Structure formats: structure tokens, C-alpha cells
């Protein structure tokens, strides 16, 4: 029995690894994914655009104060950027401010300039109606939702007004600077994850890999079962091997191909990490930080997750007769995986939230989500243990059900079984 499982798994493995498709995905997927990850960081850091805005106010002093405040902020940002990345002089978005007096025809001119693109927006300051009150501000921009600029202006105006108030109370400029110095909050974390940002990147990459490989190879199991059904080699095999052994061999063989692929990718990742301990891109420093524990947990959850989903896929393959029929059923695979994918964002920001803790214990979500929690959060030991036990138990259950469906389903040609029939198969033998 075992030697037959081995024979089937070996055949499956050999035939798959030799295909052109395997070679192509092995090379192409990391290239695409790496390109995507680094590309987005690169683009994010390079897309700095200068802004040109106008400040319109009867009170020219206020407009000029705002101008100097914005310039001061600019200097601070430049300094911060320069200190974080000395190698690549980072450029930040510059804001050019024109201060001007309001007049009846000014708004029309400004709107024209806005239209022509000479101006990105203008701030209209209406003086306070009562003495000692605050003036009102309105920011008009080309792109209605320029929230970032509105935020920058609001905080700058806050400080300008505070300065004004402070000046009224006789505070000198140097003291004001000290008082208004922005507070810095350093990101220091308990535990091993010191370099949070790059940890998130490398963990996310592994998440993508796990997601892709489980989905691709789960579907491969289903597809190869359908292929054997349509090529009718099933009957030949069934005369020699138990259906359970066939299924086991197939899942192991296809899974081994997936492991090989992940192994190649991880090795390549390590070589890359070793070759350049830190890759500088556009001033942001991305370390490829993968710890040994992370890889161990990645492999554990990857293997369990693959077993979970490929067993379901095997049942789907056994129940259907063609790729088209399979596509109607593959939502059973896709939906839980997509839900996991949707959880990626919440997990990255709060890996130990109640939602994350509950979701990570539900077997279909465990492989991807618990892996993320182990890598980024601080799950209790019992949570990790419980997730593995729950997942393993449900895998056993699924394999039990699947092997029954498989045994009968593989010989069903022609029509798709009804739910009632499937329930009958479970009772049969």
C-alpha cells in the first residue's frame, strides 16, 4: 500500500517537475511579485510633485506667516529625510506659496490659473467677523479631494495662529520654536520583531507565496484527477491500487512539487538577502528579514494548509467530469482563501486583535492567518497549539470524507452527482 502511494507520488512529481509550466512559474512568479513589491515602494518614494498654491488674505501678515511656517516645515521634512537615507538624497514634495491681497477680481483670476494648471490650489482667508475671533479658511483645489494638502495647511495654520496668540502674550520667537517642536514617537517593540516595516514586507511576501501555492497546487490536484478521469487511466490504476492510495499519492506528489517550488524561492530569497544585506531603494531601506522560526512555522502552516485545501480539491475533482464543471465548484476553494486575503490588511496593522485571534483559530483560515500572527503578532502558545490541533483534526475529517467521495466519484462518468447522491456515497462502503 505504502509503496504504491510512493510510486504514484513519484510519478506525479517527476512528470510535473519536468513540464515547461513548472519552470516558467518558478522563475516568473517571484520576478513578478518582487517587481510588484519593490516597484510599489520605489514608485511611492519617487512620486514627489511640487505644489504651487496661493494664499489670499486682507491680513497680509497672516499670509506671510503661513508662508514662513510652511517653509519651516519643509526644512524639517528635508532634514528628517536626509538623516534617514544619507546615501540617496531624498526629495520631498515642495510647496510654493504666493501671498496676495484679496480683491474683487482676484478670485476670478485664481480660478483661471487653477484651470490652466499654473496653480494647484488657493486658500481664501476671510477675516473674523468679531474682534478676537478666528478667521475662516476655505481651500479650493483642482482635485477636490486633496486631503493631504488640506491637512498640511490646517496644521500649519494652527501653529501660525498659536504663534500669533503667543506673540500677543509676549513670548519670544526662540521660546516659541522650542514649544512648537514636534514630538517624535519612536517605534520600539517588545519581542523579536525589531525591524517592523521590513518584517511586514517579508512576511507579506511569504503570505502571498503560501496563498498562491496553496491555490495553484490545490487546483492542480483537482485538475490532475479530472485529467485521469477523462483519459480513463483511472480504471487501469484502480484495478491495482486502492482509491485512497491513489488520492494520497496524488496529493503528496503534487504537494512535493509545490514544496520544491517554495524551496527554490526561499533559497533564492536567502541568496538575495545575503548578497545585499540591505537593499536601498529610493531611500527606504528594505531588509529581507526572515528568521529561522518564521520559516519553520511557514513550512508547518504551508503543509497543513496545502493538505486541507488539496483534499477538498480532490473531492471536487472526483465529483466533476470537466474543467468547466470544476470551475463552477472551485468557489469552495477560492472563497476561504480570498477571505484570508482580505484579512491581510487588518492583520498587518493589528495582528493580535480579537478578530485576528478568532479567525486564526478557524481551520480554513488557520494556515494563512495564524502564520501571519506568529510572524508579526504575539499569539499565546496555546493558541498556536490549538490552531495546529484543530487544523490537523479537520484535515483528517476532510480526508475521510474525500476518500469516500473519491472512491465512488472517480467511476462516475457523465453526470454531476446531486448533493443527495454525495451523501449516499458517504454511507457507501
Amino acid at each position, binding site marked *: 500500500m505504502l509503496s*504504491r502511494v510512493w*510510486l*504514484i507520488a513519484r*510519478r506525479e512529481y517527476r*512528470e510535473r517537475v519536468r*513540464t515547461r509550466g513548472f519552470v516558467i512559474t518558478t522563475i516568473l512568479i517571484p520576478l513578478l511579485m518582487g517587481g510588484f513589491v519593490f516597484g510599489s515602494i520605489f514608485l511611492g518614494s519617487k512620486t514627489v510633485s511640487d505644489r504651487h498654491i496661493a494664499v489670499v488674505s486682507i491680513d497680509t501678515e497672516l499670509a506671510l506667516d503661513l508662508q514662513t511656517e510652511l517653509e519651516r516645515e519643509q526644512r524639517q521634512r528635508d532634514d528628517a529625510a536626509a538623516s534617514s537615507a544619507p546615501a540617496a538624497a531624498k526629495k520631498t514634495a515642495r510647496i510654493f506659496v504666493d501671498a496676495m491681497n484679496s480683491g474683487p477680481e482676484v478670485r476670478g483670476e485664481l480660478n483661471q490659473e487653477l484651470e490652466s494648471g499654473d496653480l494647484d490650489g488657493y486658500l481664501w482667508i476671510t477675516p473674523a467677523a468679531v474682534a478676537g475671533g478666528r478667521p475662516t479658511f476655505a481651500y479650493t483645489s483642482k482635485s477636490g479631494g486633496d486631503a493631504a494638502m488640506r491637512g498640511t495647511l490646517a496644521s500649519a495654520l494652527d501653529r501660525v495662529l498659536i504663534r500669533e496668540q503667543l506673540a500677543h502674550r509676549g513670548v519670544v520667537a526662540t521660546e516659541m520654536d522650542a514649544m512648537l517642536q514636534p514630538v517624535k514617537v519612536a517605534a520600539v517593540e517588545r519581542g523579536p520583531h525589531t525591524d517592523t516595516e521590513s518584517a511586514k514586507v517579508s512576511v507579506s511576501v511569504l503570505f502571498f507565496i503560501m496563498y498562491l501555492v496553496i491555490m495553484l497546487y490545490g487546483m492542480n490536484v483537482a485538475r490532475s484527477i479530472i485529467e*485521469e478521469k477523462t*483519459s*480513463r*487511466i*483511472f*480504471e*487501469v*490504476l*484502480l*484495478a*491495482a*491500487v*486502492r482509491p485512497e492510495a491513489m488520492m494520497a499519492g496524488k496529493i503528496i506528489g503534487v504537494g512535493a512539487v509545490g514544496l520544491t517550488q517554495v524551496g527554490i524561492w526561499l533559497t533564492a530569497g536567502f541568496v538575495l538577502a545575503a548578497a545585499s544585506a540591505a537593499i536601498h531603494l529610493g531611500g527606504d531601506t528594505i531588509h529581507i528579514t526572515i528568521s529561522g522560526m518564521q520559516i519553520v512555522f511557514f513550512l508547518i502552516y504551508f503543509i497543513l494548509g496545502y493538505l486541507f485545501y488539496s483534499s477538498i480539491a480532490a473531492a471536487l475533482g472526483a465529483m466533476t467530469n470537466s474543467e468547466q464543471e470544476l470551475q463552477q465548484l472551485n468557489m469552495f476553494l477560492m472563497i476561504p482563501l480570498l477571505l484570508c486575503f482580505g484579512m491581510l490588511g487588518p492583520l498587518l496593522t493589528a495582528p493580535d486583535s480579537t478578530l485576528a485571534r478568532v479567525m486564526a483559530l478557524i481551520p480554513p483560515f488557520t494556515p494563512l492567518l495564524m502564520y501571519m500572527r506568529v510572524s508579526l503578532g504575539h499569539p499565546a502558545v496555546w493558541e498556536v497549539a490549538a490552531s495546529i490541533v484543530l487544523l490537523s483534526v479537520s484535515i483528517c475529517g476532510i480526508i475521510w470524507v474525500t476518500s469516500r467521495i473519491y472512491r465512488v466519484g472517480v*467511476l462516475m462518468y457523465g453526470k454531476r452527482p446531486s448533493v443527495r447522491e454525495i451523501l449516499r456515497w458517504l454511507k457507501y*462502503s
Partner: protein
Amino acid sequence: MAIVQLDHIRKVYDTKVAVEDLSLSVDAGMMFGLLGPNGSGKTSSIRMMIGMTLPDSGLVSLFGKPFTRGVLWRVGYLPEERGLYKKMNVLEQLVFLGQLRGISEAEARRRSRNWCEKLQITEAMPKKTEDLSKGMQQKIQFIASLLHNPDLIIMDEPFSGLDPVSAALLMDTLVELRSQGKAVLFSTHRMDQVEKLCDAIALIHRGQLVVSGTMQEVKSAYPRNRVQISFEGDDGFLRHPAIASVKRYPGQVEITMRPSQTLTEDTQLLLAEAMRCARLTRFEVSEPTLEDIFIEKVGQSSPEDLAELAMRQNAVGGEADA
């Protein structure tokens, strides 16, 4: 000891009775033909013989014991639906299938080569299966089912779709295996193939046994009322009153005699009459062919009968399902 023994097996698929009360037995050194038109239940019966599906009732015994998967290593099976891994190298494929049957890799390789030589397809060995002709693929499957030297060989439609030369080659191989003491059972809807090859037959129609027994038993139940005459000259003798019907072919006729107590005498009279009219090169008296027997047995039921039978089967299927 019977190698294959079916006792009153019955199999119902949801709405269709596939096999109804089928009993047969096959001995060692015997060539057994399972005959019937398409959809008559041949494949269902064969699948139950090797435990691929289970009968709803009745008993399947192989090698004298109730069926277990443990005896499958002694069985060689060629399914009706031909299936091979399309992208796989032929020799590798044979070795893999041989290994699955429990023989070592080296032995599987050696036997595969020998069989390929025997069936004259050595040039196919290094090729991919999908590059081969259908006939070649069939030969490869044929080999795959025999690699582990089984004592019982079960083949579902082994000669369908083969050219006459290849079919003859496979038939010769089966005859040789029989002479080695193997039990061979094959199904076919081509009755003419069976006449020469088989020691015993079972003829099934709509899942039910119509005729069964050794070839002699089957034939001796029928009078020798078929006469084949090859002749040149006047065909006036065909108006002889003892003749029931005549089929004319170029240079020869096939005659069915009227049922009669004096059939042998009638036939002799016909011979005398024919010799008087024409120059004969052949005059042969025989039992009806299997095809004639089959048509006679099955053709008795009129279309109305058949429709009613189908409805009754549906009703039975429905009850079994509920």
C-alpha cells in the same frame, strides 16, 4: 475450481437495471466470451468481477473464494475505456504500471521490452503516448494488463478499433495465454470474433443472460439448419420447398432450412438438386451462427415489448432508489 464465479449478481444504477440475475463461471485454461450489444451490461458485469463496483446482491468469487482486493495481483484487466498518461514516455509508463502491480523496476523493464518485441511495437517505446496511433496505444494497454503475468485475464472489448492484422496478433496472444493455463475472459459485441476463439460464452441482453454454456452446448441446442453453397451455374435449386429463406452473396448463398422432422433428409435432397442444377465448389451444413442465435433470441421481443421492459426496469430502479 472456477477462476471466476458469478452467482445471481444484480446491479442497479439509479434508474437503470444494469445487470439482472447473472450467473457464470470461467475455468483455468478457458477462453470465455461475454457477448452482447452495446449497453447490455457487459462492462458493469466486468467491473463487479474485479471489485471496482459492488453488486447490489449476489456473490462474486475469484479463485474459489469470495472477492477480496487481495487477489487482484493475479488479475490482468484491460478496461473498455482506454486510458494512458498522454504525456508520458511509453516505456516509463509500462514500467510504472508494472511496478504498481508489484513487480520490481528492473523486471518490469525487462518484461515490457519483451512484450513490445512480441507485439512488434519496439519503435514506440521511446515515444510519448500521445504521439502514437490508437492501435499502438491499445497494444500498450494490452501489454500493461499482462506485465505481472496474471492467472486471470479480463479484457473489455480488447479488439475494438484494431486493424485486422493487429486484432489477429492479439487474438493469437490470448490463445497462447490460454494454452499456458490462464483463464481468459473478454467481452465483445462482435459475435463473429467469438465463434473461433471461445470455449464458452455468455450472451447477455439488457442485463439479462440470454444464452450461456460451452460453445458446443450452445450450438447443439439448435438444429443444423444452415446451408452454405458456393456454386457456378443455374440457381434453380433455390426454389426447393424445404428452403425457408435465402441470402444471396456473389458466388454463394446462405440458406435457412424449414424446421422439419426430416431436416437431415431434406438437406440431402437439396444437395442432390443443387448438384443437378449447378457446379458446386462448396456445400456446408452447420448450426446457426451466434449472431443468428442472438438475433433470434432478442428479436423475438417486439418493439412494444422492449419499451414495456424499459419502463418496468425504470420502475424497479425507482423503487430501489427510494
